[in-house]
């Protein structure tokens, strides 16, 4: 079978890539685009380490054949990081000691970004549900859930500051 050309808007920039049939969005990002911040944990949609935003929705990129999302918008952890400093979600994870080995962190942060995009004022239950597809084997989740809620406060404060 022949390779296909797929166009994606990755972190705001238009990218074209030549992919073999069956190539996952995860492999397209990591191998083709060199965006290794999206982690490969299980390749079976079980761990959430590869979570990215696809047209604003959280998806596990290992479960998405990239040929099926031609012309889509994809946002990864690399795109979240501003030129200076950190995104408020990243600040919340950093200051809340919500990372340990760091392998699940990109996915956790992107799942948080997906949550806050549609629900800027989540309850604790909303936060738990938003990261329920993301496995962390180090922290026991409490610090991560606290960081998600803290991130909501920080994002909303930053939004108010911009509006003022």
């Amino acid at each position, binding site marked *: 079978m022949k390779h296909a050309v797929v166009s994606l808007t990755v972190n705001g920039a238009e990218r074209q890539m030549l992919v073999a049939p069956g190539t996952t969005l995860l492999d397209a990002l990591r191998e083709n685009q060199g965006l290794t911040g999206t*982690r490969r*944990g299980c*390749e079976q949609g079980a761990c959430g380490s590869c979570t990215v935003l696809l047209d604003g929705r959280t998806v596990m990129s290992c479960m998405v054949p990239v040929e099926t999302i031609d012309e889509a918008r994809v946002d990864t952890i690399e795109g979240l990081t501003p030129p200076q400093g*950190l995104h408020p979600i990243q600040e919340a*994870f950093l200051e809340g000691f919500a*990372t340990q080995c760091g392998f699940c962190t990109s996915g956790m942060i992107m799942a948080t970004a997906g949550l806050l995009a549609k629900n800027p004022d989540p309850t604790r239950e909303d936060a738990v549900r938003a990261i329920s597809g993301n496995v962390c*084997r*180090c922290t026991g989740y409490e610090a991560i859930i606290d960081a998600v809620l803290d991130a909501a406060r920080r994002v909303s404060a930053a939004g108010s500051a911009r509006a003022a």
Partner: protein
Amino acid sequence: MEKIDASFFPAEREAELDVVGTSVQRADARGHVTGRTQFYEDVSFPGMLHLKMVRSTRHHALISNLDVAPAMQVPGVVRVLTHKDVPNNWYTILKLIGVEPDDEPVLPEDRVLFMGEQICAVLAETPQAALEGARRVVVDYEDLPAVFDVEEAMTSTPFKKQGTNYFVYEGHNCRRIRFGDVDKAFAEADHIIEHRYESSPIEHAPTETSGCIAKPEGNGRVTVYSNTQALYFTLDNMALILGVPFNKLRLVGGTVGGGFGGKVDVMVEPIAALGAMLTNRPVKYAYSRAEEMQVSSPRAAERIYIKDGVMKDGRIVARKVTLYVDAGAYCRHSTYGTTKAAAHMPGPYTIPNVHVDAYCVYTNRTPSSAMRGFGVTIGDFALESQMDQVARFLGMDPMQLRLINAYRDGDMKAHRKKVEGAALVEVIQAAAKQTGHSLPPQFASMSSLKQEAGHGQA
């Protein structure tokens, strides 16, 4: 974060604890939250080959036929590695600290000892071609009886080439501790309380699976990017297995996507480096999630019998422990874990008569190895469950029972080390206070420092 309580043992410290109890950011956290932390898999090289293992589908069997030719027919398959390609095929991880014999083949020669054991390695241009090649390798087996129970294994036909189903410690079939006279003390005790405790294997299940990339360099060295937790064990074992000087290998690691002891064994690196040396191309060997769950070594299953001789007033005067560590098919770190288990007995208690037999047993289960306090963790589960059983039997407060028997500074432990820096009494007192559990004055005023006359003696 709460400041640590530094009011205990002030005379034992020279300076104030000015960092402990404060929040200090991890050095790597900024990399984690930006996704810039580099894990081993985040490097890749032109021309990199992918390695997939053919694995045993039997618990214990002779390999009567191994045909790799069909794999070579798959487009993209470059080479298949078997035991014949490995310069020094037999090893044991702790060899460099004097553990012997070499009991594990990098790739087995004529038999497999557990389900999932690696048999041969297929190298291909893509992961898909490597998988397809591995699928086409033909392995014929002649099944042999398999043993899955540690006590059964002690008496069943030896299945390993060194001739015993247990590790031999200085001429003995177990690691032994003898202290005082347990039989005499059992005869004199008011009660004998005996229970059996058992645990299952526990998989670490790190989010990042085990893996490495081995890359041949222009200067004749091989660089290995790995997520091992044990760079130097890996370096040493690779040099021995590959038959090359240590300075021909460069290990790059330090960032591990979850380890918990599960990435201490030397599993993926030697064979990937061998593939790199034989093909002169970079080779990547990454466990799939299924491989991580099935073949990476778990915490050992243990079976522990504890027999206590107890007086009516709560003093434990004798403790006999018979402990079995299920090493699975190969030694790895289990011999060390079993020694640690023996040294940990009889727990943090001063018991004047102790008898321990700790067996490191081979079975046809997945080899077990390191995991968070291995050798001690399951022992503690058994010991503290036993303390609760004793307390319940005597109708005593479990905290008071522990305080009566707690070790203190200066006491002699069963393995002939004098106790130093004990804090068990203070920890129990603090736990009692925090949980609103009231202790009578003679227990509330105990100290790990004070040696009361006659304490610890029957």
